[in-house]
């Protein structure tokens, strides 16, 4: 090939590639604001915490609050229930976690009440509800069964129910959304 022609062709290829690359980069950068606009807005992020009064929750009963649009299960556990979830071989569970790593105070279990299978809300908060074989929660959609620590024991769900960050503001008020961060492997 004539060197002059070749030089011209190289220059043309270089310009094509540069123009194409800049177009692609520009379009890519332009896509980011669009994608990011679908993330939670500033007000949604700011509204991430809630305070719950737990003074009226008797031993053995439960309260359902709302946190970030999802139900928050708060259960005042009996000594027998605490014993059932603590004196056991947790290492053999599907999602192995000791109850101590999921609670701040032994008598209170606080979890996001959403089944880790496909997002339904398990039963077990009201007195007449089925609670499954482990006396915790039973998901009516596909039969996942949780114990009184919110750990998955039977059924299709892969993980324990999520423990949100929280702290006790006083003995009767719990602040959910910030405070102690619990390990939630898998989330």
């Amino acid at each position, binding site marked *: 090939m004539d060197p002059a022609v070749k030089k011209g062709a190289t220059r043309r290829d270089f*310009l094509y590639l540069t*123009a194409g690359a800049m177009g692609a980069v520009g379009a890519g950068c332009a896509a980011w604001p669009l994608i990011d606009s679908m993330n939670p807005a*500033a007000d949604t992020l*700011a509204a991430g915490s809630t305070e719950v009064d737990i003074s009226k929750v008797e031993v053995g009963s439960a309260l359902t609050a709302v946190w970030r649009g999802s139900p928050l299960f708060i259960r005042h556990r009996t000594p027998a229930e605490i014993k059932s979830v603590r004196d056991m071989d947790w290492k053999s569970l599907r999602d192995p976690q000791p109850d101590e790593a999921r609670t701040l105070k032994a008598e209170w279990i606080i979890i996001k009440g959403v089944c880790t299978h496909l997002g339904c809300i398990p039963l077990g908060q009201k007195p007449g509800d089925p609670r499954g074989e482990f006396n915790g929660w039973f998901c009516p959609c596909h039969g996942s069964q949780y114990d009184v620590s919110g750990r998955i024991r039977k059924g299709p769900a892969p993980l324990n129910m999520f423990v949100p960050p929280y702290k006790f503001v006083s003995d009767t008020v719990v602040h959910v959304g910030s405070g102690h961060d619990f390990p939630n492997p898998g989330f």
Partner: protein
Amino acid sequence: MSGSKEKDKFDNKTVQWINDRLPIFSMMNNEYGKFQTPKNFNYFWNFGAIAMIMLMIMIITGVFMAMNYVPSTTEAFASIQHTTREVNYGWLLRYMHMNGASFFFIAVYIHLFRGLYYGSYKKPRELVWIFGVVLLLLMMATAFLGYTLPWSQMSGWGATVITSLFSAIPLVGGGIVTWLWGGFSVGQPTLNRFYAFHFLLPFIICAVVFIHVWALHVSGSNNPAGVEPKSDKDTVPFHPYYTAKDSFGTVVFMTIYFAVVFFAPLLLANPDHFKPFNHLQTPPEIVPEWYFLPFYAMLRSFTVGIKIFGHTLITAKQQGVAAMFGSILILFFVPWLDKSPVKSARYRPVFKWALRLLVLNMVMLTYAGGLPAIGKALVMGRIGAAYYYFFFLVLLPYLGKREKTLPLPESISADFTARHGHGCCATVKKALVPFTLGLGLALAPHAAHAADTPPLPNLHWPEQGIFGHYDKAALQRGFQVYKEVCSNCHSMKYVYYRNLEAIGYTKEQIKALAASYQITDGPDENGQMYQRPGKPTDHLKSPFPNPETARAALNGALPPDMSNLVNAREGGPNYVYAILTGYVPAPKDFHVMAGHMYNEYFPGHQIAMPQPLVAGQVQFQDGTPNTLDNEARSVAEFLDWASNPHMEQRKRLGIKVILFMLVFAGVLLATKRKVWSDVT
């Protein structure tokens, strides 16, 4: 679209497989790779592609705006505020969308002018032209519908005025208007259906664009010489020659568009667009967007009914409405009004000047349409409307028959050779002047607003200019003034305590500040409202629970919400400063009504707000002398921040975007030159 049975061959097997079943690659190749295009286009031929890109930008930003928009009369305005303030890059979506409409119209108007100037509507391209006019009508409808959605003063009253145009139709007009509204005034049903149509029409526009381009590809493109291609020497394949040229032109156009989006997003916006719709009070001056002003001026030019034997045959209203709609509809008939065998205005010495005069006429109409409808605006409107119709109904047919035209070039390639190398952009450069002038004049009336008040002081604000940013100390002083003085009457319901972090307060300070207010919340489990300390996520506490309480407490006056005040006033922070320092004794012969004060800068001079600030009123925590000047300046700057909280982020991103676009334009220009270097 090719009728040939022969199958195209492609190197890539996947492409071949798809193409054998759905010949989409053959189509692309035929319509762009092989499509022969006259080689003598000037830059006016960019604007079809530019309009197409603007349509895409409008659809994309529009879909993402729709994800945040609530079509409810009580929520719409707030949802737009929420998009602008709280949604990630929401301000960018909104400013791209609202300015995108203007730039879409700029592109389309230049495209339309190109068609008229070079006779692109003539045989065999009549249908290309007609579908183009259909597109213009659809675009106008879509733009109007979109303008109503923020449910601002301009939205609501624009919707009322435009729908009321149909009441000019004899007998059934009133019924049609009620039907359009779905009620007896513009309201919830109107907003809902306008939203549905605003979402639907762009997709119909896409379909018509397809037909427009299809028809164009059957007849082939016109060109500046206006002679049809005779041989292969006259044409080049569309790709890569015109893809390269269109890309360059598009990027230049978009650089200007982005400069407005990032550095002057409210340049073309009316301040009344930042006030929520009040269905009991029309703003003193209502004007449409600049791109409708010429037609609006024609609408207002007719003030006397036509009478026969004492009976009004055609009312002034009917004449105005007919003139306005007629001005667009007449475009459909242009291919038959102009019978000249010569297409391009280059070779039509009289037509050329008649058309340039029409452009100037449109500029004058734009200017007139933005002025209050009295005096010289009406005179200009009448002259403008008269020339417009004279051009289409008299000049076009007459010149088509009688004009002595110049000799046409032998062929496109002869024209190309004659012009190649010297001043390819001369035509565009010449045309830029009237278009820029037109845009400038469209804006001019806003500045001339409220002639009975002195011109606003033109202070220097630290946030001005491309590199300007807010002065945090001034913002904090301004917040102190708001908190201690303004907040006794004015709410700021789109600003939250947590937002104050941006002006330099710590999280702890904000928590303490919020907690110092008692906020009504509820109902609790007993159904009772209760008081609780404020939280950072609360909006700044409103002084009154509802507008009625405010009116009852303040002598019937309703203090406006201040979240958007600077954007909602002509002159922005200068206006706020002027009002705060404009309380002077009334002239001797001026009667001030009870419950009002005299203020030099307030339109009409009678203001219901007692003088809010005096020297020494606020003890600034940072020790700044508490002169009236300092108090007024800092609160004006604070309100500017409240209206435009993302300004600094916007300018920072803008600088990056503009730099990128300039480099990109340079690369594309080099590419275009390289591609065209072998065309002689």
